[in-house]
């Protein structure tokens, strides 16, 4: 049988056939032998000579726990989407489809490791012990990030694409300057998240250069979800992204981003490399953004339903469920209990969100500077007086 040809969009009005879509996806390269995968989309555990030792301790209880994280993170994400549709949030940035990349890599971190997210890493936040309700302020517009950044070692969300790669490089340089690198047990590392679109930003390039120049203990974790809003990967790169690391002189590796076990094992390996002084490392987690870029976006304008359908077959949660049920005989009760817990979480997020207080106008003026600023202080006092002048006999308007 002749190999099907991928669709070449010569006429913008033309549409590819299903076969052409599938051929095109293969052409994008799912990794082939270079793609690290421990759990197939069908839920089969496949051996891996290099990375099995980084998942050696992952028994049934751990897989169940990973499954729980995946389901709860997806539920929190869907709740965020729904709350935006209900007008409770101004915007939501969905992670649907990227749960395994985030939970797997996040669970590889130790408490002392530092994490620099972009703005879609709600699943990584979960693994750092940050409650989904703590993320809501950004999207409701009541704050710019409200969690314990230093204690949880989870930096504020960075919205300007790629900025965090340099901030993470600096932080990891600091870990090295403080002699926290060298020992696999006590060493520290940093992980930095960004997407395929970010790889075209200068700051990501510079982050690679700096991390390499200072041997920084930094794992660059690129979630390649195939789309930078409406722009496909082919407009960002000619080569698979993980191969770019070679040009900077450090290892790059591609992992099945929908395989939570592989993401966990590969990130553990990368962190160990960094802890022992062999950093930096680039991981490309090959995954897919199943929803739109944000709730303000409409992905049906630029991509095909066929493509989304194909990726549904590689769902990061379903393969773990199948694995647990078929390989370990886990009963339906377990899955039902997790679903019930997820619904409780959804309820809790919803009620929390609806009860979030409106910040007062004085909040606008706080913490612009460490030292007092006569300019900002003067504007605050003047505006609060003005605001108070609207108080009437019927109370404050």
């Amino acid at each position: 049988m002749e190999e099907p040809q991928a669709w070449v969009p010569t006429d913008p009005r033309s549409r590819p056939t299903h076969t052409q879509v599938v051929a095109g996806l293969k052409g994008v390269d799912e990794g082939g032998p270079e793609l690290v995968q421990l759990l197939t989309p069908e839920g089969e555990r496949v051996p891996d000579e290099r990375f099995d030792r980084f998942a050696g301790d992952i028994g049934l209880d751990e897989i169940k726990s990973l499954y729980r994280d995946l389901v709860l993170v997806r539920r929190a994400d869907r709740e965020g989407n729904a709350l935006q549709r209900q007008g409770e949030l101004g915007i939501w940035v969905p992670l649907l489809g990227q749960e395994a990349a985030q939970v797997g890599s996040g669970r590889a971190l130790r408490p002392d490791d530092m994490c620099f997210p972009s703005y879609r890493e709600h699943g990584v936040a979960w693994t750092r012990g940050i409650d989904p309700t703590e993320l809501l302020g950004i999207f409701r517009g009541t704050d710019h990030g409200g969690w314990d950044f230093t204690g949880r070692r989870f930096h504020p969300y960075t919205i300007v694409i790629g900025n965090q790669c340099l901030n993470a490089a600096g932080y990891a340089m600091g870990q090295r300057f403080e002699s926290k690198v060298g020992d696999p047990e006590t060493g520290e590392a940093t992980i930095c998240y960004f997407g395929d679109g970010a790889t075209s930003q200068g700051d990501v390039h510079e982050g690679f250069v700096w991390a390499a120049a200072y041997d920084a203990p930094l794992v660059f974790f690129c979630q390649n979800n195939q789309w930078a809003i409406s722009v496909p990967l082919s407009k960002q790169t000619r080569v698979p992204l993980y191969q770019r690391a070679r040009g900077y002189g450090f290892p790059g590796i591609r992992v099945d981003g929908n395989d939570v076990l592989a993401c966990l094992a590969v990130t553990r390996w990368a962190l160990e490399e960094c802890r022992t002084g062999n950093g930096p490392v680039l991981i490309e987690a090959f995954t897919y953004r199943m929803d739109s870029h944000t709730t303000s976006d409409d992905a049906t304008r630029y991509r095909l339903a066929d493509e989304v359908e194909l990726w549904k077959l590689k769902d990061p949660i379903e393969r773990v469920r199948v694995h647990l049920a078929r390989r370990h005989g886990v009963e339906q009760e377990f899955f039902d209990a997790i679903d019930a817990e997820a619904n409780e979480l959804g309820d809790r997020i919803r009620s929390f969100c609806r009860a979030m207080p409106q910040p007062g106008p004085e909040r606008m003026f706080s913490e612009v500077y460490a030292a007092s600023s006569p300019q900002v202080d003067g504007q605050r006092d003047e505006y609060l007086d003005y605001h108070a002048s609207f108080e009437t006999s019927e109370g404050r308007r």
Partner: protein
Amino acid sequence: MSTTTLAKALNDGLRAAMERDPKVLIMGEDVGRLGGVFRITDGLQKDFGEERVLDTPLSESGIIGAAVGLAVRGFRPVCEIQFDGFVFPGYDQIVSQLAKLRYRTQGRVPVPVVVRIPFGGGIGAVEHHSESPESLFAHVAGLKVVACSNPADAYWMIQQAIAGDDPVIFFEPKRRYWEKGEVDPDVTAAPPLHSSRVVRPGSTLTLATYGPMVKTCLDAATAAAEDGQDLEVIDLRTLSPLDLGPVADSVRRTGRLVVVSEAPSESSITSEVAARIGQECFFSLEAPVLRVTGFDTPYPPSRLEDDYLPDLDRVLDAVDRSLAW
């Protein structure tokens, strides 16, 4: 009390800050072995090592971005941008991260980073080496912006900037690096960082300026004195926040103000001073606030910079126009 150049005073100030606090780092292009293209960091890498005085990759966004990360880790980085016109690759990190991280985290993540920028013209340089971009930073909430004008201020202001928890854009008048002055090593001699200062008392008219133009204005005041005009000169020193109390006090006495800067006039430090003094001293002013500035053009080829830059004659011309109002 010792006599030293502005460049050496900065070097001494940086050294003192590094001795006081082991978390202070210097980072920039050529700041280590070479000592910086202006030699401001001369000898510091030799004495403090390569992990405290970092010869960085040639990457301004990297210098600022990495400094932000180091500050999050607990360091106090002092970045050198080699020339004013080279800061813009780092402008994104300055505006998006350095300026806003404290506000974003409501004070939980301070970013005590100082960004040193040699600024201004008058050295006959090629394009991008003579600019005065200070208002681009003063406009950004979260940044503090200062400009030193003499060795004593250079010595103390750099140490004060490093000791504070706010990010500071620290402008150094590159054509005055080799001017000499007295430095009093007694800390009680140092005024607060964010204060302006009367550097020459007078009664006829007020000149408000900063950075390299302070010397120009002092020279103008000396020349004017020969004509019997007693000009007061105020060194603003801090550009954000501005400290206009001393300027307003002065204008209430003199009734006249001329503001002088090398930067283009539109939406600038000088326009801010003019607007605020106009509002605050309306009934004391005998003439409108006048400004002497660079032109609203890109910085010209250096053979034209003597025409572009305010000089003694242009300052005195504005003084005459104000007095004749």
